[in-house]
């Protein structure tokens, strides 16, 4: 499985979740797989995808929020995992796309290979901690996460070194405005 498989599977079965995508290649992959107005593409602030997602989820308790995170992002700010477990928001889904490397800076190894991520999430207080390494497991895991209250966690193991499209061709201001307006409309 490659990163694009995860984005395609997620976006094509979208249930109108507000989606926060981590920076680096992940945002670029997500944008070129399927750009939805309910996607927020992080460009910088590495490590903060989960924190941003928690903020959205707190502000909009009736809307499901999905954080599409990376292994480097997660490990940069593990404290956020503690916050997510502590807050125990039923509308939060956290998906870590794990290629075991820092792809956009040249493929340097991350530490993720030795970390039992779903166990970390469960220990922090998530209600579900899943792992998927093929398409069937991914589809089943997403279906399960969408059927129950969160916070739920899924680690998806993907192959490293896949080609990526150009940078997201929208201004940061436009990304924020589109996302904000699109999730506000649906709440009203």
């Amino acid at each position, binding site marked *: 499985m490659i990163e694009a498989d995860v984005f395609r599977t997620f976006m094509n079965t979208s249930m109108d979740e*507000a989606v*926060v995508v981590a920076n680096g290649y992940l945002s670029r992959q997500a944008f070129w797989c399927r750009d939805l107005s309910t996607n*927020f593409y*992080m*460009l*910088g*602030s*590495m*490590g*903060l995808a*989960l*924190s*941003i*997602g*928690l*903020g*959205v*989820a*707190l*502000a*909009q308790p009736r809307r499901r929020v999905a954080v599409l995170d990376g292994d480097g992002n997660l490990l940069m*700010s593990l*404290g*956020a995992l*503690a*916050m997510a477990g502590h*807050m125990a928001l039923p509308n939060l889904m956290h998906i870590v796309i794990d290629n075991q490397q820092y792809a956009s800076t040249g493929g340097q190894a991350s530490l993720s290979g030795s970390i039992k991520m779903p166990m970390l999430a469960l220990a922090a207080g998530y209600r579900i901690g899943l792992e998927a390494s093929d398409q069937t497991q991914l589809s089943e895991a997403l279906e399960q996460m969408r059927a129950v209250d969160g916070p739920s966690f899924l680690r998806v193991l993907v192959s490293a070194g896949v080609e990526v499209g150009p940078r997201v061709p929208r201004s*940061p*201001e436009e*990304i*924020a405005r589109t*996302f*904000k307006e699109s*999730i*506000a409309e649906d*709440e009203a």
Partner: protein
Amino acid sequence: MTGADFCELTSALEYDFFTGVPDSTLGTALKVLESDPRYQYVPSVREDNAVGLAVGAYLGGRNPVVFMQNSGLGHCLNALTSLVSLYKIPLLLIVGWRGADEFDAPEHILMGSASPALLTAVGIPFWIPGQDDVGTSLRAASVRSRSENCPVALLIRERVIY
């Protein structure tokens, strides 16, 4: 200004999402935020996470405030520059200013003297109120933040909020 009055005023200025990391300089205000359910204070583990939470809350339709000690500015500089300023998010930062003079604890001296220059260097407008003009500074900061869609900061010396 008392901590309770400070919280009332931020609320009157339509701020409705409060998060941060504790600081003794802001202690009385934080005590009110934590104990009064109107504010629904969200404790964060680190200043950059607090900034991330605040930005998420803003995107979800809220008006956020982040409380922190100035030692935490270093933790969240990247979040302030490559998230808040980049995406033009109006964010109010209430920053307790330890090391504002050389009489504070040694760990606060260097960051204390550097804090105003640090905010200037990353283009964050800031106010340093005295006890009598906290309200004026807070109003001016909120107007600037909302008209320019940018982060703004109040640097709060000890005993200014009591």
